[in-house]
């Protein structure tokens, strides 16, 4: 088997204050292009530190600067400003062929005139590794990606999933300090993509190499990553573990981009210790935990995930956020029902209800319903 380095403990050591030198560091990196005489700022000052052995994702919509950031790590783009470090060493002006990172390209970029074996051996040959060693390592990595016996095939004779694994093997065989993956699953169909997500995670654990994964697919990022940097408009909006990003989105953009979320706003009516009470309609109240001192009368924006909300026809009891509304849409989703509920102030709230016990629905279109959720599930946006 291939050597196992950092391993599963890597995620824990990603916590701030870790003594380890980061595998990859971007220090206030800016990238500007000139296009038709206009300066376009693709990356507007990104700083991040990726820990050795970590599965790190750069997540964001197209044009957010995630691919440009990755290409600066690989060396294909020169930053306009800032420093790129690999294991503490400044590589900002080092050519890509002199950097100890390898990339898996979006379209795989396999050499069409070479067999699978020749594609995978390409990097080792350029590094002048001796041929017995090349034979051994190529054989080994093809086993890891489950392509043994297909060494003589040409890329065009293989399926998308197989090509994807050749691209992965071609990069991994060099045992780079970090592997950069640019939307590598984008061209695959859903079933294969899900299988490859698990496969990638397994390979990453087996080889213990730092993975930097660029994607616009939030599900992919949440499934695989130890940490995620959510990028928007050339900046990192939030850098945290998947659970943190989902449960406690830092900005309105993150809340909207990751999963479905309901945005609510209201003015503070009362503050009881660390809980603020917001008033909406006459019989509505929203309880939200607040950290900093909030004053009465201030308007707060908050988000609630659809699956945290309970829908009922009677008024719920207890210390809950409670709002009343009218059902405007009921969608049967198989494992769950989705309700759209319009509140008194016109805001639309989405609610997911699991089909756990019986599949009867709680309310029909036009019914007046109560929505309730635990105070800690109101998440105040800064």
């Amino acid at each position, binding site marked *: 088997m291939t050597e196992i380095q950092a391993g599963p403990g890597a995620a824990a050591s990603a916590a701030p204050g870790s003594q380890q030198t980061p595998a990859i560091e971007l220090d206030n990196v800016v990238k500007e292009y000139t296009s038709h005489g206009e300066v376009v700022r693709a990356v507007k000052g990104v700083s991040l530190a990726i820990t050795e052995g970590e599965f790190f994702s750069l997540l964001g919509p197209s044009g957010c600067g995630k691919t440009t950031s990755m290409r600066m790590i690989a060396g294909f783009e020169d930053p306009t400003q800032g420093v790129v470090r690999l294991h503490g060493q400044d590589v900002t002006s080092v050519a890509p062929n002199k950097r100890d990172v390898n990339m898996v390209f979006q379209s795989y970029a396999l050499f069409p005139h070479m067999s699978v074996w020749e594609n995978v051996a390409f990097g080792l040959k350029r590094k002048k590794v001796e041929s017995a060693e090349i034979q051994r390592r190529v054989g080994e990595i093809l086993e890891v990606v489950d392509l043994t016996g297909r060494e003589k095939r040409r890329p065009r004779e293989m399926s998308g999933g197989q090509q994807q694994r050749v691209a992965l093997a071609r*990069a991994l065989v060099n045992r780079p300090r970090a592997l950069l993956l640019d939307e590598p699953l984008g061209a695959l169909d859903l079933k294969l993509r899900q299988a490859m997500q698990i496969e990638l995670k397994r390979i990453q654990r087996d080889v213990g190499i730092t993975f930097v994964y660029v994607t616009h697919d939030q599900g992919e990022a949440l499934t695989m990553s130890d940490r995620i940097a959510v990028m928007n408009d050339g900046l990192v909006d939030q850098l945290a573990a998947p659970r943190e990003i989902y449960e406690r989105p830092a900005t309105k953009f993150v809340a909207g981009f990751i999963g479905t979320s309901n945005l609510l706003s209201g003015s503070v009516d009362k503050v009881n210790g660390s809980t603020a009470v917001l008033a909406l309609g006459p019989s509505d109240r929203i309880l939200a935990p607040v950290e900093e001192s909030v004053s009465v009368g201030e308007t707060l924006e908050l988000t609630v995930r659809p699956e945290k909300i309970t829908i009922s026809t009677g008024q719920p009891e207890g210390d809950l956020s409670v709002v009343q509304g009218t059902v405007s849409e009921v969608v049967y989703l198989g494992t769950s029902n989705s309700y759209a509920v319009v509140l008194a102030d016109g805001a639309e709230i989405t609610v997911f209800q699991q089909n756990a016990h019986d599949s009867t629905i709680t309310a029909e279109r036009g019914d007046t319903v109560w929505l309730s959720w635990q105070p800690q599930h109101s998440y105040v946006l800064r």
Partner: protein
Amino acid sequence: MRTLRARLTPYALIFPGGLWLAIFFVVPTVVMLSLSLQSGNVVDGFAFTFNWHSYVDGVTTYHDQIVRSLLYGLAATVIQIVIGFPVAYWIAFKGANRKSVYLFLVLLPFLVSFVLRTISWQYLLSDNGILLGPLRDAGLLPQDFRILATPAAVIGGLSYNFLPFMILPMYVALERIDPRLLEAAQDLYASRVQTFLRVVLPLSLPGVFAGVLMTFVPASSDYVNASVLGGTNTTMIGNVIQNQYLINQDYPIAAAMSFTLMAVLLVGIFAYARALGTEDVLEVAAR
């Protein structure tokens, strides 16, 4: 009914072109082949006699011209690869959104007639012309220096006249190379030179192959360049054929020489294709 029509469609599509080739290529070829085996003269007329002597006499007499034609064609082809490849490469990879402008510039000389272009070269290279005159006057060249009527002039003219036929197929092959492949090679520790030799060159070889075919064949059988730019020592087989046909009116020997040239070129092309077949070329380059 519909299936019959569907089955006839491919034939309907090939019919006009097929007929055209049958009339204007196959028929004259057969006529010339027959002519090459006839004997006689213009005054008494020619008769079909299976006279192989035209071939034997032609090859014996014009052996030098045949070899010279192949050498000139080869030299011109090599020069065109050396000049044309960087141009094709530059347009394909650095041409950005002006690619069609640059390709048009490559083709621009073709808007001028082939003969006229060659004559303008003659003017340019003539002993007291605008190029050599001043250089000789300035003492930069010896008094007896000349280019016109030398092999250099003929090969130069051939290289110039067929250059676009070399550049275009090479451009097409290079343009199809995904720039990400170059990045991938660099990412896998290849230097610029290695990236070129291992990735760009092997993937462009089909274009080079096509370019060689499209330039070597017309250059070897050309007669305009040798007659306009050459002298008595640079006669090519094309000139011999032209002379025999139009001036000496010895049709059998002209026809025999045409077929000899055709046979030599065909053998050469097949040998070349066998030795450097596209697929095999790629196999070798991948090692």
